[in-house]
């Protein structure tokens, strides 16, 4: 699974120098991915320990994995995040533990530290064969079947060797798992009428598009891996941040904000 993190990091490093408007976002995200990979490796390498999936039970180990992550945010993040990271570094570990537990019970995409810290933990929970415990996970095809999280980004990928069309998957914003989801369906409200679903493309981002719903006025970005097989959806989604601003200007709200807050 560390290869997965490496792929995201390499993609962010590759895109950042060439990025136009989102250069700063990608440079930060590359550093954040490295910090998340370190959390993952710390948890995976912790001797005589496997995650139970119950965060309350696993907290002592998880909190021990976070100082390096906080230092990265403090040194690379924008002023507000850096100040908060500095405060958390100085604070009693119990403060961070309580924040993580609150997020565990009721996840929100505006809680940067909690979301970023628990993504690698939940990935390791998934990879080790455990399941999240003690969460009131939402149920339904638009929620992650593993942890109940909302979708961060969708992507199209060929699954039939003879098919040219891409099957659609969603990536969970909470645990970064992916699950199959139907095409031509709103990932937020389940709208299926074609006239209500708009797909917005721009030649500047050939393989990324806005998948918007005129019924619930929400959108998610879609990355087409049949056009760019080397893309990493959660990274390319950040690279295409200008599309987010365009969507907001046109009255659409994002289902789940990413870790740079767009």
């Amino acid at each position, binding site marked *: 699974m560390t290869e997965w993190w490496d792929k995201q990091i390499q993609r962010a490093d590759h895109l950042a120098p060439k990025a136009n408007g989102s250069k700063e976002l990608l440079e930060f995200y590359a550093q954040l991915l490295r910090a998340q990979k370190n959390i993952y490796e710390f948890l995976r390498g912790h001797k005589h320990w496997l995650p139970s999936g119950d965060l309350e039970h696993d907290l002592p180990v998880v909190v021990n994995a976070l100082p390096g992550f906080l230092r990265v945010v403090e040194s690379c993040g*924008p002023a507000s995040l850096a100040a908060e990271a500095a405060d958390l570094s100085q604070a009693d570990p119990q403060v961070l533990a309580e924040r993580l537990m609150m997020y565990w019970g009721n996840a929100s995409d505006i809680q940067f530290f909690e979301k970023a810290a628990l993504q690698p933990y939940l990935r390791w929970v998934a990879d080790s064969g455990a399941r999240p415990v003690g969460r009131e996970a939402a149920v339904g095809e638009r929620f992650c079947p593993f942890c109940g999280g909302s979708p961060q980004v969708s992507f199209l990928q060929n699954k039939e060797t003879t098919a040219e069309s891409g099957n659609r998957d969603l990536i969970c914003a909470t645990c970064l798992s992916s699950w199959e989801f139907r095409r031509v369906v709103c990932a937020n409200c389940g709208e299926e009428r074609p006239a209500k679903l708009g797909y917005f493309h721009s030649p500047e981002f050939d393989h990324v598009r806005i998948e918007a719903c005129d019924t619930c006025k929400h959108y998610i970005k879609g990355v087409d891996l049949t056009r760019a097989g080397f893309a990493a959806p959660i990274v390319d989604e950040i690279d295409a941040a*200008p599309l987010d601003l365009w969507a907001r200007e046109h009255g659409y709200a994002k289902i789940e904000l990413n870790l740079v*807050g767009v």
Partner: protein
Amino acid sequence: MEVSRRTFIKTTLIGGAGVSVFGFSLAPVYAQTQGLKIARTTETRSTCPYCSVSCGVIIHTLGDKAKNAIPQVVHVEGDPDHPINRGTLCPKGASLEQDIVNDRRLLNPQVRRPGSDHWEDISWDVAVNEIAVWTKKTRDETFIDKDKSGYTVNRLETIGWIGGCTDTNELNFLAVKTMRSLGVCYFETQARV
């Protein structure tokens, strides 16, 4: 004070520029946004008309839903969620877009006269009239009301009808009624889906 997600996002993304929810400056992102050329497409799930396999397709239509704009098909692909074809299409189905958008598509009736070596354009009125005249003449001359054994058969063996795969149910219904009433035996609507 408890701040809702909505309030939080509103206060940090006012006017498009400003900063992101986590404090990143979005001025350069906003500048790039201004230069984007955005096109809206619609994806409509449908069924390939060509054969009885009935593969699922997704038709991509370009258009911004403006009142007087005519949407244009820009792409047709196999529907990966369809249980029959799971995203695959045969070569004929894969060329379905060209059935809809094709500058070689005939827009007027044509006729090749006896002895002629080329097709000539004719008007719809001429075509309808000529079909009616030739149909009546052929039917009058070759209609079979009784067979050799004296059984009443009321059939017309000198006219045939071949339908197209993209003909609608309504057209096929009318074709069957018309051909049956003329006594035509050799007809095929290709209504298999």
